[in-house]
């Protein structure tokens, strides 16, 4: 077995949290149950990885199998990377018959015709997600297995989720190969980025809870049925206001959990409006300003702003439109009032 492959497997195993190593190796399926039984998964990770490499040596693993293990790791821990969403366009109206083998063949052919030194691996998952792992090389060097890009594509949808690596120069090549393989015409990057891949999927596939008004006979969410210890001496003065805020919040955010994004960025290119007598800026040019909201879970925190009393309800539509407009990077230019610039309908 190649030294580089051995080292790569060792490092991949080291990344995995100790309690999950066994399950992940089982998912990998390259080592038999009997072999896995021989490894002590309670020792320190260094030793575990050494044992695993030893076993792989016995089975003569090559880079393809090692890559599969890497895909499995990234599929279970996708939140370690930042994912961007790309949208593809096409003008034709024919029904799509997405053929997986066809897709894989076209993708590999297109990519390899431009750059021979790439390692390409595919893995399909139950939810129709196709994971593609690409390790990039250059025309003169072999692919660097530590400089990888990941692509997640759901067949027959116009959205692609890409976690590019450091080498952004290979991105146009990757995009082209995707467009050709999936029978679309062009591709562009959406202004939507996050660590949470599933949340990005929820946003563009419209799987998050939108509050639709319907008569659907669905049980109403359980409100506090048991009244809090009713002490008649306590009077809720602001009950109406609280209920109003709750109602507005529910209308905007829906009932379910919000997709998880970590930041929203607003780039202002608007004129500074000040008292004309103050004359802060003599030049009449836009006041450039960048506002970034970050949070471990931005949308949930926005949802709790009004009930916590920190903001007025309803919140600014610039904040609440994030899942609906499927973007978290905005450019606000001078228009009649503050309106976000070029918008895309997802």
């Amino acid at each position, binding site marked *: 077995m190649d030294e580089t492959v051995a080292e790569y497997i060792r490092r991949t195993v080291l990344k995995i949290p100790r309690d999950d190593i066994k399950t992940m190796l089982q998912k990998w399926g390259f080592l038999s149950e009997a072999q896995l039984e021989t490894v002590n998964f309670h020792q320190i990770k260094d030793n575990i990885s050494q044992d695993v490499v030893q076993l792989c040596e016995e089975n003569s693993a090559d880079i393809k199998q090692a890559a599969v293990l890497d895909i499995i790791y990234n599929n279970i821990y996708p939140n370690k990377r930042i994912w961007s969403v790309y949208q593809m366009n096409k003008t034709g109206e024919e029904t799509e018959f997405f053929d997986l083998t066809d897709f894989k063949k076209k993708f590999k052919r297109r990519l390899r015709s431009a750059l021979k030194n790439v390692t390409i691996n595919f893995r399909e998952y139950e939810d129709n997600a196709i994971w593609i792992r690409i390790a990039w090389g250059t025309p003169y060097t072999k692919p660097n297995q530590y400089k990888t890009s990941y692509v997640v594509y759901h067949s*027959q949808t116009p959205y692609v989720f890409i976690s590019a690596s450091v080498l952004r120069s290979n991105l146009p090549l990757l995009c082209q190969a995707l467009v050709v393989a999936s029978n679309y015409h062009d591709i562009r990057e959406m202004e939507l980025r996050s660590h949470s891949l599933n949340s990005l999927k929820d946003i563009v596939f419209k799987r998050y809870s939108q509050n639709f008004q319907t*008569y659907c006979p669905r049980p109403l969410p359980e409100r506090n049925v048991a009244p809090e210890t009713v002490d008649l001496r306590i009077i809720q003065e602001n009950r109406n206001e609280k209920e109003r805020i709750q109602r507005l919040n529910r209308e905007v955010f829906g009932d379910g959990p919000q997709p998880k994004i970590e930041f929203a960025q607003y780039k202002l290119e608007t004129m500074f409006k000040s008292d004309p007598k103050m004359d802060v800026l003599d030049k009449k040019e836009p006041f450039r300003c960048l506002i970034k909201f970050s949070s471990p879970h931005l949308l949930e925190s926005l949802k709790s702003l009004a009930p916590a009393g920190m903001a007025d309800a309803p919140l600014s539509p610039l904040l609440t439109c994030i899942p609906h407009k499927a973007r978290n990077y905005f450019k606000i230019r001078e228009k009649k009032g503050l309106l976000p610039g070029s918008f895309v309908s997802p």
Partner: protein
Amino acid sequence: LQEEEEGPLRKSSLCPNVATSEGTEPGQGGLAPAFPLPGEWRGKMEEEKVYSQNGVFAHLELLEARAYEAAVKQEETERQEEKLARLKARVQELRLQRDELRAKVDLQQKGQLGKEGAVSNPAQPSARAVLEWKIKSLKAMLQIFYLTGISGKLSKRGVCFCISTAYEGTYLDSFHLDLLTKPEVRIYRHSIPTFIPLQQIAKKYLQTDIRRFLSVLSDHLNAYVGRRYQADQLQEHFSGQIEGTLQRNSLCNLLVFNYNVSSESKTFPFNVRLLYGDPCCSLPTEVVISCTPDAPASLAETAAAHSDLFRRVALHKVFRSFSSAGE
């Protein structure tokens, strides 16, 4: 109002560029109305004949303002009349109700005095019972609408539709569409999966025939859900009969898998490729079954029979028939 404007419009010696409309006689000094005006106006017209020559447009403006005032007054009186009529009707209603209640009270009093211990009229349901019955029948009505597959509710700015899908008696997913109706019908937000060609269907039918739009969309969704259900059932209940994995896609309109067919105590793998050409249909339009070259010729017949079966019968039912026939 239009006619009043055109009537007096005519060339005046001081304003050579004023357009004339047909039907007026040139050469007259004053403004002659094209049709008889109410008495007071005629008087005012006489007054202003002298000044009309200086500003035809000013005069027009004056007339317009007067007409507007008259219209407002008219509207006001109409509104008053309407209100009056409404209130009168309400009074009638209330009088009727009062009479009814009086009659009821009289009846009850007579009944109590007359027969004590008698059973109260069972046909008089209590108000609460009536309300409960109303709620129940309303819920049943809404349930019926929901079961028909397409139900809607008016929202603040338009309509919100709910398309519920089902396949052969099993209710499956519900999808929602929030439509705005002004200034034109358009989709505000929705929960339709991205691989359903919603934009295409909307472009064709949304503006012109909304019923057709909903019907076509519902067909697409029901067919998709039906195909997905069949594929899921196959994977869940008949995975033993499938070799390897079932290759599918998001729309479930192309399925490829292998299964074994036994003949003469040997098993041969069949490779099936099901193509669902019609997006509104949950049965395949094209079935391609291929077998390995070493398969006996008799299997060709079986392949043809199976192919026909796949085209006519739901996927999981086909396999159910296989397993029952085999055992």
